[in-house]
């Protein structure tokens, strides 16, 4: 990882120096060794605080909406999963591709600090990742975890190690593709009875505090004004005076991003209440794949998404209401 960072810094300085780009978008170190902040670097000196390690989870694609409105070209570092979001934003004309220099960086999965904490690592003041193990240095002693156990949800269901779009790649140690079934969670819920599902979701959604972090971090939620903020939309709401508001918010949000969601997993990562929001979006992805053929948003910039498309032979909606199971 250290080597990758060295190359990243070197290359960024070079591109800045040559005037090919006038700023760099990357991750910046924080207070505790795991709290990185996306940042814009404009000079070689500033780049010394650029960081790339097991905690560089934030997807930088969405920042490019604003960045490409500015003068000059920006260098951005994108992990494989981030490139899907990038493509999708290009497709929706939200990013000016000409103004971005994309460097794809290798990724072997990012570590979830909350996972460390929930496994007892209280008072973390530093973390080491040797590829297999993650060692947390805490105020109350060191703790060691298998890396696979403490990966972010989005990394446990990684879409692949290939970058969908890039101008350059920085790959020191090619990461092995590992097969995983990202629909296991959805399947498990599908297998439940409606009553169980209802209990599950009510429990989860009741936690929602409507902080809008999921929406604001979501690269698909790039609306200039969200319907929930628009007093004229008829659905504007801010908090949850009733459980219905949560259902409404999350259902509508899932629908608005349906066919556009690349399953980047940022929503689940940022939720302060750990609501498994990816299970909502992934359900729609699973359904679209099943009903209308495999589709992965963000693999390209010109395909037609399932909900803006049709065939004459599509399944009827009543397959749902008529399908087995009670109610």
């Amino acid at each position, binding site marked *: 990882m250290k080597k990758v960072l060295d190359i990243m810094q070197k290359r960024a300085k070079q591109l800045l120096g040559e005037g090919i780009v006038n700023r760099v978008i990357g991750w910046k170190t924080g207070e505790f060794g795991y709290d990185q902040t996306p940042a814009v670097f404009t000079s070689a000196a500033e780049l010394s605080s650029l960081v790339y390690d097991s905690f560089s989870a934030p997807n930088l694609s969405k920042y490019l909406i604003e960045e490409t409105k500015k003068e000059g070209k920006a260098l951005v570092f994108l992990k494989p999963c981030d490139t899907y979001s990038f493509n999708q934003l290009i497709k929706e004309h939200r990013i000016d591709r000409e103004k971005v220099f994309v460097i794809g960086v290798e990724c072997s999965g990012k570590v979830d600090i909350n996972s460390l904490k929930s496994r007892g690592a209280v008072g973390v003041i530093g973390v080491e990742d040797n590829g297999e193990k993650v060692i947390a240095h805490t105020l109350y002693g060191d703790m060691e975890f298998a890396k696979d156990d403490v990966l972010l949800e989005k990394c446990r269901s990684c879409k692949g190690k290939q970058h969908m779009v890039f101008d350059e790649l920085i790959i020191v140690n090619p990461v092995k593709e590992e097969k995983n079934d990202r629909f296991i969670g959805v399947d498990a819920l599908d297998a439940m009875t409606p009553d169980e599902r209802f209990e599950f979701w009510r429990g989860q959604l009741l936690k929602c505090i409507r902080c809008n972090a999921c929406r604001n971090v979501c690269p698909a939620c790039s609306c200039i004004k969200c319907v929930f903020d628009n007093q004229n939309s008829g659905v504007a709401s801010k908090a949850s005076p009733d459980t219905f508001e949560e259902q409404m918010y999350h*259902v509508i949000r899932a629908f608005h991003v349906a066919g556009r969601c690349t399953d980047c997993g940022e929503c689940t990562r940022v939720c302060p209440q750990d609501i498994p929001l990816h299970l909502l979006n992934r359900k729609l992805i699973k359904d679209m794949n099943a*009903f209308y053929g495999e589709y992965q948003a963000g693999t390209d910039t010109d395909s037609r998404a399932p909900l803006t498309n049709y065939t004459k032979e*599509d399944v*009827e*909606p009543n397959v749902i*209401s008529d399908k087995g199971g009670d109610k």
Partner: protein
Amino acid sequence: MQVENKEFKPTIVAFCCNWCSYAGADLAGTGRMQYPANVKIIRVPCSCRVNPTFILRAFQRGADGVIMCGCHPGDCHYTSGNYYARRRMTMLFDFLDYLGIEKGRTRVEWVSAAEGARFASVMNEFVKNVTELGPNKRITDLRCKMEKEGE
């Protein structure tokens, strides 16, 4: 409990496209074909005008069932509207089911302008099914519900 069920008259919102289903409903009227008064029809130009939000809104405000009717696939006045509607509603219904909402509360039927009798029978059946499901408790806004019951 049983007495309560007998009394229960569900609120049903029906979205009907102007060209086929609304005309089909008119034909049901012309033919004096009875169906329960619980069904209230909202006219939309095409089934593709029906935003999933409208359906959620109906449930929020206390609807117990929502049915959407449009032209038969292939017969859309606007060529393709009902094909899009079909995909949207399939996704919505499965999603609501995924959240544990009773799937019997939502339905799509294609009713042509000539199918007055079918319109009536579809409505009869839908109302019957929703009545059996009982009041909508899972996807409704308690504030509206309390207001209704308070009367």
